[in-house]
């Protein structure tokens, strides 16, 4: 390698580093974005740690196995304080007390612990769905934009069809027909979210492929795959990242909405929408169930939306300053 070449590569990396530092500086300047970053990190940490913080066996509606199906707290004590409400056989809803800071759900499980256990379930599924939708949509969009012609037209029309169906009905019908499993739910939500990425990526590719470096690469004898996957897609991936961050919140909400509407594989699964749907029937007499599970969903979605919104402001060259 000649000296001058090393110099250009170095300066290129220096420029990228400077750019990154400036981006971080811009992000730091905005307190809301910082709040978003910290909340996101908090939920991601909770996703990995939840099963160590709370014993996952607590989610079993039959109670602790080692206590022979009973619960280790004294129900009589709660009863004597007068804050138990009797709903009939099999339903044990307690209002918040020193034992359960947020109250209990219909099985007498501690709501706070169930919410902690629910966070990894929601996060994990939302991550899988969002990445799946983004990857699928990006690939199709890249194909449509790069190849053009008939393939472009066909992909766009299919995208149009999926964009014109009211977004929930598609997921609902799909989930209703394929049975109540987590995999079905994941796929049904993926069906709703991929078309945005096709449009986004296609637009990016159309402007990117006209640039002179693509022509230079082709002149150097680079194949289509190398040009597309090695250069064009990496150069136009930022909007996709921002969109995925923004979509993450919506995916969490849609996933829990389907659970709420009754597509849950098991009513005792600790999942935020599931906990909320338990509370729907006790909406006025046991509001804590729905209140706190919904609030958790809001916080997760808000964290990722704050982050995505900040990223968009910082990465979008038209708004960046």
């Amino acid at each position, binding site marked *: 390698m000649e000296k001058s070449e090393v110099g250009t590569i170095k300066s290129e990396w220096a420029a990228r580093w400077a750019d990154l530092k400036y981006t971080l500086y811009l992000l730091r300047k905005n307190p809301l974005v910082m709040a978003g970053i910290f909340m996101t990190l908090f939920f991601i940490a909770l996703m990995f740690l939840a099963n160590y913080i709370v014993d996952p066996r607590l989610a079993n509606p039959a109670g602790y196995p080692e206590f022979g199906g009973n619960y280790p707290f004294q129900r009589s004590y709660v009863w004597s304080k007068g804050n138990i409400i009797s709903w009939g056989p099999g339903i044990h809803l307690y209002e918040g007390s020193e034992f359960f800071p947020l109250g209990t759900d219909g099985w007498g499980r501690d709501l706070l612990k169930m919410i902690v256990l629910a966070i990894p379930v929601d996060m994990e599924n939302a991550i899988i769905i969002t990445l799946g939708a983004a990857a699928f949509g990006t690939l199709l969009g890249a194909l449509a934009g790069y190849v053009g012609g008939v393939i472009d037209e066909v992909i766009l029309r299919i995208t149009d*069809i999926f964009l*014109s169906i009211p977004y929930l009905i598609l997921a609902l019908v799909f989930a209703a027909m*394929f049975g109540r499993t987590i995999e079905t739910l994941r796929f049904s939500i993926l069906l709703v979210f991929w078309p945005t990425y096709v449009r986004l990526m296609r637009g990016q590719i159309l402007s990117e492929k006209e640039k002179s470096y693509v022509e230079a690469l082709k002149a150097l004898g680079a194949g289509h795959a190398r040009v597309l996957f090695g250069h064009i897609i990496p150069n136009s991936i930022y909007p996709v990242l921002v969109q995925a961050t923004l979509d993450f919140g919506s995916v969490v909400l849609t996933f829990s909405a389907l659970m709420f509407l009754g597509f849950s594989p098991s009513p005792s699964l600790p999942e935020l929408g599931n906990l909320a749907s338990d509370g*729907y029937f006790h*909406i006025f007499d046991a509001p804590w169930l729905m209140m706190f599970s919904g609030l958790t*969903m809001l916080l997760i979605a808000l964290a990722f*939306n704050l982050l995505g919104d900040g990223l968009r402001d910082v990465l979008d060259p038209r708004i960046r300053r």
Partner: protein
Amino acid sequence: MKLYEYIIRRLILMIFVLLGISLIVFYLARGFPTGIDPVTPYIHSKMTAEQIEMVRKIHGFDQPLYIQFFYWLRDILQGDWGITGTWANSRPTNVVFFSHFPYTVELSVAATILTVAIGLPLGIISALKNNKLPDHVSRIIALAGYSTPAYWFGFVLQLVFFYYLSLWGLPHLPSSGASGMEGVVSRITGMPVLDGILAGNLGYTLDALAHLILPAFSLSFISMGFLTRIVRAGMLEVLRQDYITLARSKGLTERVVIYRHALKNALIPAVTLTGMFFALLLGGAMITEYVFAWPGVGQISLRAVFQGDSNFLLVYTLVTAAIIVIANLIVDVLYVFLDPRIKY
């Protein structure tokens, strides 16, 4: 391309989109053994087995799925939309659909009005006070808007404005239904508020409005956030352009610069997204209608999903999809008038 050619091209494309949608929904709703037998809603207790067989033959339920689709297509083109599920007493789908559709339209229109009335000023303030306190506040409201689970927000509204207010003996808003005085006014449009106004019945109108407030606000909360962010982004981009600097250096007041010069151009992207809002509102209306027991088509389609009622689902998706496509078309045509640089 002339404008009318463009419109015709889009309308022809719309037919293909609708055909594609009906194929997908038809396959999903009828193609699986988990769905109920499509002949079920046609049956009543006085029918003999032969008559049931005849219904099967007429509508092609005994044929393979891909042939059934053509039977359905033939029926729907002849104006026979089929019989909808047992939950609706096996009535014709179009009767059920169009008697409940006005409720959904009323809800969506009210939500759109609220979206624009709240989202637009928030977005403008946000851009003018970029990265200052008002911007942060409006950003929080907007982002909270689309981070909020729709059903949860509806529930919180019900809890506060219906349950707690009524517990404390204060005047409260109704929590469910579209009207508390069913049958007082004759149905003309099917939308309670509009019917009340047409009949000149003030009490009925106010009652219908009171029923409308909570669901509409709950529904508009999501799209409001989107509108705010889009108006803000558009405004920020326009405010940095040369012609704004020129307008300012001419000595125009800030008011004139913003409202006469900047806003017009900043609103173009917001207008183009109205189509998207409509899709969002129609889709979101399902959950809002479910929570507020609003008698619209969204809530009914939710029941149809659980019953595997393909006839109603097909009508629901086709009509809403057609509305979404046409709304997008109108927006694209409006674009030409709003932005003279764009040609077709």
